[in-house]
């Protein structure tokens, strides 16, 4: 049965329209407002509060905590010093991605290294299996740590007002401890919106107090709660992939084509083949030696006038859903299918129809014009889609 997160006592009354979806066994609000577009607006113009507690969270503690991280992730964990956060995928022994998430090096305690590992899927078994011979304890803290994302150009103002501490010096992908309304919390400069933002890691038993403090501090900054529909638009604009939508975890793939290497999902830049061994490294070296994987993640700018034309052909005014579609749709070049679009949605910010897709390497160069299937009134058609660089939206303020 689906249950509420630690913030549920506050999020439930806010969700007047009872628009919930299930996320890892928890209720996650789809939208708190009649239209989620105002929540996208809060993410891009003001500040938004997004309950991300359903993420899986693990605490790695012991002298070998970082060695365990290094064994698993494709990046060089030697650089994961206290206070730093890595975004990274991790692979199985065939070099296929199991999951992606952020890994936070907390402050050392009593000489032991402490790491917070976040994931979309359960990883405790994988972590413990790979900890063989290492002096590290792996604890599942998913339910004892609540998490809320505070995102948007005014998120720093809200955070500073709520904690009374300055945060301008906390750089992109750094973290530190803080106190919010007397509650010890951990703050990371991370998020899933491609904007200025923080994620707050809070003891679950004090989640409601923390929420109230943020909401009170956020009032002058037009802070709004935002749900998954708004988050989906923001992450699409930011070109951020979503597991089980834009790629399948190797843990769930039923046929080889459903497994993806990091190079196929736009995360190749993170892979450090020269910095010691990690699970899947040999397979990835072999893949690169053989000329790289056959598929690539691409951003697609979908031609709106052609979508209008498909409507006009049936005498209809143009229309488009304001929700990101997660239905995979075929993509063609010269009439032959060369891949699929996995996330499709209208960006209210860029005034464009955007897509994330997986296409053959030969068709992945920016500027390549492809065609994708587009259905209007159950009649299939195609519209042009041009490969463009990701992210679609990348404001300088994100890193500033």
């Amino acid at each position, binding site marked *: 049965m689906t249950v509420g997160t630690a913030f549920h006592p506050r999020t439930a009354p806010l969700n007047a329209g009872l628009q919930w979806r299930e996320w890892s066994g928890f209720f996650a609000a789809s939208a708190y407002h*009649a239209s989620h577009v*105002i929540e996208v607006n809060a993410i891009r113009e003001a500040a938004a509060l997004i309950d991300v507690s359903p993420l899986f969270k693990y605490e790695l503690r012991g002298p070998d905590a970082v060695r365990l991280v290094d064994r698993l992730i494709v990046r060089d964990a030697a650089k994961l010093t206290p206070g730093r956060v890595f975004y990274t995928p991790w692979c199985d022994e065939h070099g296929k991605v199991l999951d992606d998430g952020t890994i936070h090096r907390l402050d050392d305690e009593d000489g032991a290294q402490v790491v917070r590992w976040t994931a979309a899927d359960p990883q405790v078994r994988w972590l413990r299996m790979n900890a063989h011979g290492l002096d590290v304890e792996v604890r599942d803290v998913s339910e004892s740590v609540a998490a809320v994302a505070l995102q948007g150009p005014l998120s720093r103002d809200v955070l500073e007002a709520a904690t009374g501490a300055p945060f301008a010096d906390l750089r992109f992908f750094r973290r530190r401890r803080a106190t919010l309304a007397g509650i010890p919390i951990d703050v990371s400069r991370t998020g899933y919106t491609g904007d200025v933002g923080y994620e707050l890691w809070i003891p679950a038993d004090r989640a409601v107090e923390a929420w109230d403090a943020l909401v009170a501090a956020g009032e002058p900054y*037009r802070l709004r709660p935002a749900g998954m529909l708004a988050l989906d638009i923001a992450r699409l604009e930011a070109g951020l992939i979503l597991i089980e939508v834009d790629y399948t975890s190797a843990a769930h793939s039923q046929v080889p084509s459903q497994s993806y290497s990091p190079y196929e999902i736009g995360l190749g830049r993170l892979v450090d083949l020269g910095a010691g061994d990690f699970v899947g490294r040999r397979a990835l070296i072999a893949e690169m030696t053989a000329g790289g994987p056959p598929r690539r993640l691409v951003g697609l700018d979908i031609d*709106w006038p052609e979508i209008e034309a498909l409507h006009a052909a049936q005498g209809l005014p143009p229309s488009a859903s304001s929700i990101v579609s997660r239905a995979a749709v075929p993509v063609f070049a010269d009439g032959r299918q060369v891949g699929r679009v996995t996330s499709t949605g209208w960006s209210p910010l860029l*005034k*464009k129809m955007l897509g994330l897709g997986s296409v053959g390497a030969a068709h992945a160069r920016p500027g390549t014009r492809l065609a994708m299937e587009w259905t209007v009134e159950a009649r299939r058609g195609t519209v042009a889609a041009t490969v463009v660089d990701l992210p679609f939206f990348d404001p300088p303020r994100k890193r500033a």
Partner: protein
Amino acid sequence: MDSARTNTPGSREGAARAAEPWDAVIIGGGHNGLTTAAYLARAGWRVLVLEKRRILGGATTSDEIVPGFTFSVLSYVVSLLRPEIIRDLELAKHGLEILPLDGTFTPLPGDYLWRTDDHAQTMREIRRWSAADADAYEEYGRLMADMARFIKPILGMVPPDPTSLDPRDWLGVAGLARDFARLPERQQSAFIGLMTMSAADFLDQWFETEPLKATMSASGIIGTFLGVRSPGTAYVLLHHYMGEIDGAFRAWGLHKGGTGAISAAIASAARAHGAEIRTDAGVGRVTLSPAGDRATGVVLESGEEIAAKVVVSSADVRRTFLQLLEPGILPADFEAQVRRFRFRGSSGKVNLALDALPTFTTNPGGTEYLRGAVSISPSLEHMERAYDEAKYGRFSRRPYVDIVIPSLVDPSVAPPGRHVMSCFVQYAPYHLAEGPGDWDNQREAFGDAVIDLVSEFAPNLRDVIVGKQVVTPLDMERDWGLTEGNIFHGELSLEQLFFSRPIPGWARYRTPIRDYWMCGSSTHPGGGIMGANGRLAALELIRSRRSRGA
């Protein structure tokens, strides 16, 4: 707003080439002038825009009048900005950011009417007033959307010259006539009604709820010197729906940083295509060939002469012909028609800086109801009485007020926790009984009347005001060059639209003077932050050059 204020000095290369005539000089850096400039520059023309004010944008302008508070000084919502312009000029890349403006709240003594984008909620709310109106509301919405789809192609069409025999000119209109013939009879008759009736009469056919009719009727009178019971105002209701059907494609709403940021985005696109833009560069007059039949450039108020192959005026029709040209140049009958073109500005603006949100006495709770428009339009009688006073040269003591509080969706326009409130006010007739000049004496009283009226519904308003700007039609004329303070460069009444705008036979952006063109809101399809005028003028210019082989 820095980019809007930047005065781009001529580059070294520009200075060296200054003696060479520009391909086009655009008079006025409002949104239409800038749009024309951007399209011409995009087509490879060397273009110079000359703006008289220190800030670009004309009536599409933002200014920090009270420190820390950015006002959209005149125009305050984006309604009909053409999607093809957003695409062609890649305006999103240049900073265009349209933000949601959801709902209309009509406060009443002891009650309210609140319509939002949440269909179920709106239906429940209207049903609270009248179950029949709720049903009618849906039917009306469908009909108007159908009408708007039928009429909308006009916005993207260059009007034909009624004297032209070239069939190509008439293709678009023929298409429209064909579409009209295909409309169901019911829609045909609704269309005739829209073309001939008053907004109040048209709405009376559908609805019985006073605040609903009054609030809906308002879009029929904005920018005209007509009342909700004046025939011809029904048609303007349709313009509103054209914004709505496009609304899905997001041309309806507020703009981040105020409407001036729209001008800044278009200016940025124009510059990216190589256009040069100068502010504080008022044009004194247009220079003509010795024979007086062709424009050759402009002389600035500073005396500087600038040569151009084409001069395009985005100023209104009266300024374009009676002020920028020396008298006696134009054919007498043409000049007479220019003089007859009706302006009769009828609206004013009160912009407020607020310490806190106003609280309306009777409200649905929370602050979401303030996120859309707040319309002071309790009844048709209120609307018509407001017009009665204006007819005799007085501003309405109890006007129609359209309020938006952009800081609720765009915190960048006010300090944290504070707000800006824009009040569009009608009627504020340019022609006061005492003469337009008396506006300077009546400005304060006008502002007070607006604040008093709104305070009847939101009693804390006076206590939270920390700054105020009152803009009268006289101010609009003096400071923005809007003749008689008309926000649309001339009334949007039927006889001044389409192939009669601005002058019958001269609806195709040309003028009787060769190489002197128009691109402002006085031209088809009229006012509003549409940009269609600027775009169509540029496309016509480009087409005319091509056909001339130049």
